[in-house]
């Protein structure tokens, strides 16, 4: 391996990242009719704060598809602690749960107190004090959302996670690409890389500290790994031909990828420390889009060895490869659910390309999204939602759908196309 590939490169492209904001805003496109009614009351003392904490919690819970938060104008009362709550009023509104709280300044930061109440049982489920520094109010709000979500659903909340995505502007030879990371709700975006050449396939390391991605900045595709904290990065591969689709192993020590250095694109696994490559496929077909099973013992990948793209599973123990998808003639880019029991993928139907979920035991495939141009599914670390790229008008936007398909939303960007979303692992 060449010395320059092993050396950390200076992050010359990583300047002024704080200035280049590309925040996304949420639009709910399909609500869940069976969502649980909840009310998040504006926090007492929150009027002068830079962020409306209760609104952030309200939006998080609504976006999850599990909850239907009560609009503020329908609240007859705005209590800030459990002693002030008249449960009968909220029962009359069919509200099942209630979040109340208050905020006050404390030194340079804030002190937030919140409670979660079970309205029908008329009892307190949670009560906690959270402190936040001046820039940490949204983070504190996401933390409260996580606690509320888990207390009610028994599922760990994923509101404090982040997403990576790629933006592009222009056409043909005159294009500008950028890689961003942002909070899971699209806020607080930071540019990681910008280039006049394509960037794609961001993949999070399991510890959330690094991204692997493909960049064409040398006018050829190469796989890079970049530390998000320091900005330091290294070029991991620049073999002849395709260097694409990096996917981090669950133990963080290996990257699966698709390389065409030996002819047609094949799946390889690289040991990151030694740079040793293990070749998993060996055929004249296209083999790409690898993704690790959560237990690290197998990978799924896309292959057109049967004629069109279908998903296959490679067992790392036995070396056996088995076709998984049989519904329709286009199934690609599979991603495991965190429990390893199902796959999210792109399925072509007579209506176009949609996000689908296939149960691995039964083989049953269910379409989740409803537009015609969906790509790049990425699963939330708690398995409740899938983020994907779709089209709105003539622009690429991010969409999300609950794993059961009941609720969906979009995150449009103010300018340019957005695509290639990658949901981070849990970060706390």
């Amino acid at each position: 391996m060449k010395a320059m590939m092993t050396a950390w490169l200076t992050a010359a492209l990583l300047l002024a990242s704080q200035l280049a904001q590309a925040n996304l805003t949420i639009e709910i496109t399909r609500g869940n009719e069976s969502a649980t009614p909840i009310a998040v009351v504006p926090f007492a003392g929150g009027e002068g704060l830079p962020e409306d904490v209760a609104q952030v919690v309200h939006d998080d819970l609504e976006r999850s598809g599990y909850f239907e938060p009560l609009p503020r104008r329908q609240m007859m009362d705005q209590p800030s602690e459990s002693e002030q709550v008249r449960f009968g009023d909220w029962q009359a509104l069919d509200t099942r749960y209630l979040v109340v709280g208050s905020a006050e300044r404390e030194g340079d930061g804030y002190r937030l107190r919140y409670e979660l109440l079970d309205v029908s049982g008329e009892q307190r489920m949670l009560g906690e004090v959270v402190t936040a520094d001046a820039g940490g109010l949204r983070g504190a709000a996401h933390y409260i959302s996580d606690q509320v979500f888990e207390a009610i659903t028994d599922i760990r909340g994923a509101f404090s996670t982040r997403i990576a995505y790629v933006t592009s502007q222009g056409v043909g030879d005159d294009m500008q690409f950028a890689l961003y990371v942002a909070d899971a709700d699209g806020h607080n975006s930071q540019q990681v890389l910008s280039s006049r050449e394509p960037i794609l396939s961001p993949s999070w390391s399991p510890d959330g500290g690094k991204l692997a991605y493909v960049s064409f900045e040398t006018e050829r595709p190469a796989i890079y790994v970049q530390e998000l904290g320091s900005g330091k990065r290294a070029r991991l591969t620049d073999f002849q031909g395709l260097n694409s689709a990096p996917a981090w192993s669950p133990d963080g020590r290996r990257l699966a990828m698709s390389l065409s250095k030996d002819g047609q694109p094949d799946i390889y696994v690289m040991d990151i420390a030694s740079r040793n490559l293990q070749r998993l496929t060996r055929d004249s077909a296209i083999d790409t889009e690898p993704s690790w099973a959560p237990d690290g013992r197998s990978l799924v990948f896309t292959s057109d060895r049967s004629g069109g793209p279908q998903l296959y599973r490679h067992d790392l123990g036995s070396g056996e490869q088995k076709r998984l998808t049989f519904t329709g003639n286009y199934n690609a880019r599979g991603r495991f659910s965190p429990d390893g029991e199902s796959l999210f993928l792109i399925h072509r139907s007579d209506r176009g390309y949609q996000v689908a979920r296939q149960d691995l035991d039964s083989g049953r495939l269910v379409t989740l999204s409803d537009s015609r141009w969906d790509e790049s599914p990425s699963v939330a670390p708690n398995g409740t939602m899938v983020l994907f790229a779709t089209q709105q008008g003539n622009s690429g936007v991010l969409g999300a759908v609950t794993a059961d398909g009941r609720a969906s939303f979009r995150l449009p960007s103010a300018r340019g196309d957005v695509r290639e979303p990658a949901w981070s692992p849990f970060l706390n």
Partner: protein
Amino acid sequence: MQFKPYARSLAIAFSLALVAGCSSTGGTQDGSMDGGVAGSGASSSGVSGGQASGSGYGGTAGQQADGRIPQQRTIYFAFDSDVIRPEFESVLAANARFLRENGNASVVLQGHTDERGTREYNLALGERRANAVEQFLSVQGVSPSQVEVVSYGEERPAARGQNEEAYAQNRRVVFAY
């Protein structure tokens, strides 16, 4: 010495139609007009640069003086196909001839797809298209050392929009000299 933009676009747009009609200008790229491409070799008598630039539309894509990069450097593909369409064989032949006759020249074959389907799979499909062109050039006697393949998949569309017109413009291989 190059075409004016207008003349150039004319030449590209009508190159196929003109090939048959302009034989009187002499020295057409033999083989390129009738599809009898493979093996037509180096028998061309050559075209003077003066003719190509002086006669406006007369300089078709198929007629390149030695040392002049061919004007037509993009070919297009059918949906989900890496098969070289007969109407583009003349373009490939002109580029092959240029590369044969200019051993120091090198080209990057940029493979592209339309936006339908997944990005990473499309990267592989774009490479397959560019490989088909590379294979064609190789049969025509172009040295492999002059040719490199880079697939962009759907990442650099030539035209935007979710319609067949845009898709058709995006499914292409570009000779980038």
